[in-house]
């Protein structure tokens, strides 16, 4: 039997399509446009093909900022995820302290990025900052504007301070959703604290951990505002992450072609890594893909 197709319903998708076009497709296509052409202003464009991509991929500058990004995300994830799980495990599950803890945890998340950068910029200064002054007083030679190591430590501590809460809150939500019966059954089975963590809490947190992992990866990989405010990418180029480099090229040097090519490569890397993470993480510990919200 022939089916009759009625394509009028597609018109109903039109409003969404217009919105997505304005918010995503047109900007991205503009970038694509720049990445394959050269311009000398006056709206005159010349076809450049893959030249900008080749330029970017063969430049040392790109690989340097990419490896800085990868290192930064790696350090951030390996600190924030375990720390977040640890803090969530220590938080009370009921009683009057629950709201207090939750509000305290949520506070850093409410502070705008550039304010976070400013706070730490002042906090770390040796003349007026509490941290910088204290460190100097106890004889630690600390200066995030001139010492590469200090600059990195400051940015990492700042990010941990700013974003560990997100991991904590997600893990906490996962933990409180575990029914009491699991803990009771584990006690009856004679399970140790470690087994309870390994076989109940961790598996039950898997879903939220995937989210925490992806969010923290994407955010740390795209970090811009805080190092921009705190170190401005320095000392030297030591904290020039890809996003900062990108802005330097696009707005500082007005090299729109290479900047556009780099943006696209940047985006592809993020999508690719997230896809790999998600696929790997949602397949570990299960013999088939998770369906819906589980049981």
């Amino acid at each position: 039997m022939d089916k009759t197709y009625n394509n009028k319903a597609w018109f109903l998708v039109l409003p969404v399509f217009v919105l997505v076009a304005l918010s995503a497709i047109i900007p991205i296509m503009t970038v694509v446009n720049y990445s394959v052409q050269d311009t000398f202003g006056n709206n005159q464009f010349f076809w450049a093909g893959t030249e900008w991509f080749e330029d970017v991929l063969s430049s040392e500058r790109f690989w340097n900022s990419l490896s800085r990004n990868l290192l930064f995300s790696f350090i951030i994830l390996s600190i924030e995820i375990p720390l977040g799980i640890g803090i969530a495990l220590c938080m009370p599950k009921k009683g009057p302290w629950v709201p207090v803890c939750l509000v305290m945890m949520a506070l850093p998340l409410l502070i705008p990025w550039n304010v976070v950068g400013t706070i730490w910029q002042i906090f770390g200064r040796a003349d007026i900052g509490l941290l910088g002054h204290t460190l100097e007083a106890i004889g630690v030679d600390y200066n995030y504007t001139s010492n590469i190591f200090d600059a990195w430590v400051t940015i990492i501590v700042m990010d941990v301070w700013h974003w560990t809460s997100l991991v904590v809150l997600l893990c906490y939500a996962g933990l409180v959703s575990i029914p009491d019966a699991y803990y009771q059954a584990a006690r009856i089975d004679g399970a140790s604290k470690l087994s309870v963590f390994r076989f109940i809490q961790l598996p039950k947190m898997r879903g939220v951990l995937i989210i925490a992992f992806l969010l923290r990866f994407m955010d740390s990989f795209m970090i811009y505002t805080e190092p921009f405010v705190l170190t401005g990418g320095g000392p030297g180029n030591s904290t020039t992450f890809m996003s900062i480099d990108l802005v330097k090229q696009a707005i500082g040097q007005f090299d729109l072609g290479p900047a556009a090519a780099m943006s696209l490569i940047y985006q592809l890397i993020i999508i690719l890594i997230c896809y790999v993470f998600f696929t790997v993480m949602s397949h570990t510990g299960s013999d088939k893909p998770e369906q819906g919200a589980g049981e």
Partner: protein
Amino acid sequence: MAKITLDGLAHSYYPNPKTDADFALKELNYEWDDGGAYALLGPSGCGKTTLLNIISGLLVPSKGNILFGSKNVTELQPEQRNIAQVFQFPVIYDTMTVRQNLEFPLVNRQVPKNEIDKRVAEMIQVLDLEDKADRKARGLTADEKQKISLGRGLVRYDVNAILFDEPLTVIDPHMKWQLRTKLKDLHRQLGHTMIYVTHDQTEALTFADKVVVMYEGDVVQIGTPEELFDEPAHTFVGYFIGSPGMNILSSEVKGKTARIGSHEIKLAHEYHALGETAEVGIRPEFVTLSGGKKGMPVSINSVEDIGRFKIVRASLEGQELNAVLPEGAPVPADPKVSFDMSRINIYENSHLVRKGA
């Protein structure tokens, strides 16, 4: 395995209970025989889960002691008591295989490896899980998961008791029956003491040798299913057991007669004069509805045909009365009811007055 003794047990969730109403579980003395199958039956909030958690050690009672055999275990933690508990929702360790799930309680107790293998293999066979033994437990159906949580208890030979907290709640109806039969089988095979909490009378009556009926923190009756049906010790039991429940009619009782409004009913036994709280209890199964001249006239409110028989909801002198009418019997136009004299129970203050008392 051992006898379980509840000695003056009571529990309140308040730190300083004052009145009776503060107690979730009122004082209770009872002995659970070794190897018995018991059901704790009652509506939600009657204290049955509280009692179960006290036996398993998840709760420490406010008053009284609990003994396994001659050993006082009141203060012992669940892991030290050697009991097993199956919860309302199947508790399984998602990341483990079925086999690892069953091994887990033994591994935690440092049972030797070859002994573990032997017992687990046996348990997998008993539970009919051979073909799924090495699969991850997370993908299984609810009833299979519930079998695993049961198996984790049974795999320890020496458990004092296996406690069930409404274990069939999330199981599909057609699997409920199978799993219940399996439970009965296991009880017969292995002879563990089993205590089964439920609010479903069918589950309780089919599973247990003895049913403990609880109401508002009190144990109102402990008896065989037959006793609960024939001689409910409390009007609540009469009402709760049976479908529809027992008819409870307030009346005056004196000697061998009970008076309901303007009607007199002959009783099989002599009772001394009872006060205003006297009630007549008669099961709908023993109420006869006929169209003749004999009996007390009733007005019929509704008739529910449930296939095998009809339930007639009527009123007698303004009091509600249910009667069961066999299949095919017509509903009389001018209905009269009469009671089977030997099946009448008399209550005072909601408690059964023993015959001849």
